[in-house]
């Protein structure tokens, strides 16, 4: 039974994101609609038009322009927001790098969708995995509640004075974006107090004109700037732990933080997942536990920066694990697998399999997770594609 004393409503992931931007006091929004993100843009435009949200909304002709315009507004010191999916994110790729390099704490909500061809509008993490080296932080949620909470936490993290980096917050296409489920609505006044005002030390000031992002020679501080970005990004893991604690105390919530260990305490075998498929994985873990199998699940929420020390601490003592990648990458293995393996290199020696599942919205079923657990318990390793070629 839900705690009926709290302020619940039933809403889709897209509606939760739109409402969260209002709660977070976003003052500027520019976005170009694309399936399955469209409802976010529509809902915000409606709230602005009905004066329920005190923000400026500007329509643009492309995602590249959407990112360019939020870059301008954020530089002016205004909390800004955009949202996109799939090919929209590819189109803004150049601007993503500019925004991160300029250290602008912009938040973009992403509804993860595959990349064509063939044309496909369903859930797949390829669209954001492809952007993992742009200098944006990445946060993957598994429920509509997290779709709301990651927006609030995302601004808090991005705008931290020692971090100042943009952040993408993800939810899966349709599985969350178009699914209605209960969401506890955070109190607007408390959210505003939690976030405070955006204070950008280098914002545009006509009394003190500056050059932004101008030419930097090889012996100029180019490398130093990149090193500082990486340092700030990796300090974000600890900051996120602190911020999560503050958030949970304030809202009586149970947001997990950078990673979530589910039944990991005495587990022998575990899967590592991202996003909404983790919910089904938990269901399977619970069932297998009831059958006496010592299994667990490690869910990564904060993917960039990659919380390597936390991952190591959870994996220590396992007899085997599997990493589930829901994206197509053409490196030796999937992106998440490579991050996990390079994090534990030289520290842990555990057999590990890399599962590829759920591309282009293919359902990742209960029996698929059961198959993955069976395989890792049998000690299988290498890249294994799940539920392919059986249609």
């Amino acid at each position, binding site marked *: 039974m839900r705690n009926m004393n709290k302020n619940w409503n039933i809403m889709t992931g897209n509606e939760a994101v739109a409402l969260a931007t209002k709660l977070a006091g976003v003052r500027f929004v520019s976005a170009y609609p694309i399936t399955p993100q469209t409802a976010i843009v529509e809902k915000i435009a409606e709230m602005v038009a009905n004066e329920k949200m005190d923000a400026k909304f500007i329509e643009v002709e492309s995602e590249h322009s959407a990112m360019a315009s939020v870059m301008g507004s954020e530089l002016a010191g205004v909390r800004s927001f955009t949202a996109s999916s799939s090919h929209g994110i590819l189109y803004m790729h150049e601007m993503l790098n500019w925004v991160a390099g300029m250290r602008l704490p912009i938040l973009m909500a992403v509804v993860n969708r595959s990349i064509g061809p063939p044309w496909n509008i369903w859930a797949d993490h390829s669209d954001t995995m492809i952007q993992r080296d742009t200098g944006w932080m990445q946060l993957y949620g598994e429920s509509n509640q997290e779709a709301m909470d990651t927006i609030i936490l995302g601004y808090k993290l991005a705008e931290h004075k020692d971090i100042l980096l943009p952040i993408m917050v993800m939810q899966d296409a349709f599985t969350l974006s*178009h699914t209605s489920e209960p969401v506890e609505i955070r109190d607007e006044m408390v959210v505003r107090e939690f976030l405070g005002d955006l204070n950008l030390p280098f914002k545009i000031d006509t009394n003190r004109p500056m050059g932004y992002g101008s030419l930097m020679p090889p012996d100029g501080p180019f490398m130093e700037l990149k090193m500082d970005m990486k340092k700030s990004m990796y300090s974000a893991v600890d900051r996120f732990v602190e911020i999560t604690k503050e958030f949970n105390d304030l809202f009586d919530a149970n947001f997990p933080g950078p990673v979530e260990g589910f039944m990991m305490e005495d587990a022998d075998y575990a899967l590592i997942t991202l996003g909404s498929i983790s919910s089904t994985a938990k269901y399977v873990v619970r069932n297998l536990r009831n059958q006496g199998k010592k299994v667990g699940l490690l869910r990564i929420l904060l993917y960039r920066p990659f919380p390597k020390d936390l991952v190591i601490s959870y994996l220590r003592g396992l007899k085997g694990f599997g990493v589930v990648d829901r994206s197509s990458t053409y490196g030796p293995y999937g992106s998440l697998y490579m991050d996990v393996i390079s994090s534990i290199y030289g520290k842990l020696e555990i057999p590990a399999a890399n599962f590829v599942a759920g591309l282009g919205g293919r359902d990742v079923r209960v029996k698929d997770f059961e198959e993955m657990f069976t395989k890792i318990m049998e000690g299988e390793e290498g890249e294994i594609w799940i539920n392919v070629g059986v249609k």
Partner: protein
Amino acid sequence: MMNLVIYLFNFSIWDLGNKMYEIRFHGRGGQGAVTASKILATAAFKEGKWVTSFPFYGTERRGAPVAAFTRIDNNKVELRTQIYSPDTVILLDKSLMNIINVTDGLKENGLILINSRKNDVLNHPELKKFKVAVVDATSIAIRNRLGDPAHPIVNTAILGAYAKISGIVKLESIIEATKDLSPSKINENINAVKQAYDEVEVI
């Protein structure tokens, strides 16, 4: 055991215990199957249940077959897969029985609620293994001027019938959810819910 006791003595038929209910809606684009799944979820949500409701995404156009799903549970719903073996199928358009396998995966003795007159589906071979209920939601919708006679919107009426025969959700909750989610003709929709509640028959 505890749940059984409550069931026998209180006749509190909407106590779900630890069971999760999965309901699949079939309709044609424009009949309101997606909204129906949302109204049902909202009604159960108002009773404190955990719910999820989601459409099956394909090409959306008027007249094409569409499906939508609702899960209802006392505890948080963790499953995020499609629904493969529903407890209940709700059929907004009986002609779909000729096009698709509407009972696909339906649990044995599961409930199928059909928008139809009783005689049209009586002795239908496909329905033998299931508990079948019918309500003429089309006539009820037309009577209440929901949609137009060529394209009546039957989703609210069928939910009134579901409230009566399923025991999962109360009539009042369906009415409250209908008020929240009907874009217009709220009173007409509520009347349709009530009439279907009275007229539904198990065969």
